[in-house]
């Protein structure tokens, strides 16, 4: 970095307000689409893996291989096929969410106590209602834990997709690096971090909202302690 430039040029931020906003939105969009598609795919693959136990190992191995491919290499591989497009970016991003999400969804669904599942069936539940009303709600904490990791991972990776000229906050980082100009570099980095923190917090809130039982247990006195009210 050049020694004579100020740490941050506020006027640059003012001049590029619109651009900064657009790229933040773009970054968010790429992330949400990737995690969303990744979640649906992972859910389907998890259900297949649970239903047909023999397929679970191949599914997770494949997702594991996808997870280990360097992101740049993956983008480079798909550019000749799908071009410099959102599709290329999303293919890469989605493939990084699969391993984390499949593991967490499967773990969450399998942790549903056998007694609960049996009681549900004994009372007259059958699929798919059993899944929606009993199994899925009980798997929520584990699934959200997976979504949080996947989301933060994807937000970081979206900065790399800027290389294939798709935009996102990575553009500012690249711009700053190319021009040896600290301000856009900082703007891109700080906003990426803020975005990650914000989405992580949003998911945490979603989990709280979706699991009122856990909230009640955290807050309420235990049964043995008796109730103070009344």
């Amino acid at each position, binding site marked *: 970095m050049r020694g004579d430039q100020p740490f941050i040029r506020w006027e640059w931020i003012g001049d590029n307000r619109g651009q900064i906003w657009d790229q933040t939105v773009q970054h968010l969009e790429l992330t949400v689409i990737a995690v969303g598609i990744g979640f649906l795919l992972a859910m389907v693959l998890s259900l297949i893996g649970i239903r047909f136990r023999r397929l679970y190992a191949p599914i997770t191995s494949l997702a594991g291989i996808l997870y280990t491919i360097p992101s740049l290499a993956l983008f480079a591989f798909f550019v000749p096929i799908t071009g410099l497009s959102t599709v290329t970016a999303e293919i890469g991003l989605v493939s990084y969410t699969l391993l984390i999400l499949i593991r967490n969804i499967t773990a969450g669904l399998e942790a549903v106590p056998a007694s609960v599942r049996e*009681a549900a069936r*004994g*009372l*007259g539940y059958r699929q798919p209602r059993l899944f929606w009303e009993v199994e899925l709600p009980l798997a929520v904490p584990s699934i959200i834990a997976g979504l949080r990791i996947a989301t933060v991972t994807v937000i970081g990776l979206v900065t790399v997709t800027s290389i294939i000229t798709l935009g996102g906050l990575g553009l500012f980082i690249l711009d700053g690096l190319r021009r040896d100009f600290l301000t856009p570099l900082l703007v891109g980095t700080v906003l990426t971090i803020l975005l990650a923190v914000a989405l992580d917090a949003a998911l945490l809130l979603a989990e709280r909202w979706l*699991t*009122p*039982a856990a909230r009640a247990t955290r807050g309420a006195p235990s049964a043995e302690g008796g109730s103070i009210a009344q």
Partner: protein
Amino acid sequence: MASEQTRASGSPPERPIAIRLDRVTKRFPGAASDAVTELSLDLVEGEITAFVGPSGCGKTTTLKMINRLIEPTSGRIEIFGEDQASLPAHELRRRIGYVIQETGLFPHRTIAQNIGTVPHLLGWPAKQIRERTAELAELVGLDREQLDRYPSGLSGGQQQRAGVARALAADPPILLMDEPFGAVDPVVRTRLQDELIALQQSLHKTIVFVTHDIEEATRLGDRVAIMDVGGVLAQFAPPAEMLRQPANAFVEEFLGNERGLRELSLIPVSAVPLLRCCELAPTASCSDALAAMDREGVDWALLIDGDRCVGWLDRDLLKEGTSDVRAVAEPLTRSISPSHTLREALEVALTSHTRVAIVQEDGRYRGVLPIERIAAHLEDK
């Protein structure tokens, strides 16, 4: 009813059969032998039938075949005369209450929502479910305030009460209970058993109760089915009959050494004649008391004032020349009522100085039951 003679004994023809097992066999895939072998049983409507036996005897498998959580390999199960396989399994299950040991309460749902599960599945209107839930909570002894809690906020005993309420929600005529009180401590367990007995007196459900505890089976069951490994029925009889005449060595061994004691716990004090022995008015003198004891050949006397027993006298304390017997009378510490069992009477008699159990009803003295009398009841058998 043509095959009545060939069935297991103990089903009086005058009462309708709620559940009929007809040569039901279950062999699990890959198993070397049957889990349940050719089991034929008639379960009488409105009775508690307790299935008891060592682990691996197929009692839980049998229970789960009734609501088709497990499908029989062969044989037939009729419920109120209809083949239970004629109904889709989930519909059948909504008509049969189901309680399991680990409660199986849904941890993500409030107690109220848990209790309302079957009505919810049946599509009752929300208001009706709420009313039914409140009614059931009261029936099983849960506070309204507890209805809004989640299962983890309740003690084990309360959770099990909620589990029973949930099973009763749509008022099913049949209740299947799979070791429902197995996971709670003995004190709570006895209380839950008492509550079930009281509940059954007003509900008259047909209850199938699986337990590994013979004590629980003889206490709760109108009839007890003892099963041996492989799902072979060893004996099916009312508990008193079984304790008196075990069908074979296996049953005898399973009933254990305390068979006699267990039998005593099935007989109420009201069923045996009480003794009136060595009673004195509180105004009696010391020499009256000693004379009475000599006459009866005992070392104690009871002070009876009208219809109340106000205390008892110990001969050793009288010898010191007391003039006022009331001054040396000992207060009554324990007594029993006619609704207690002979086993409880025995325990009171054993721990009392006088070796008799004093029987009182609503504070009124009724008589005494000496240890020998209780023991004699065992020896006639």
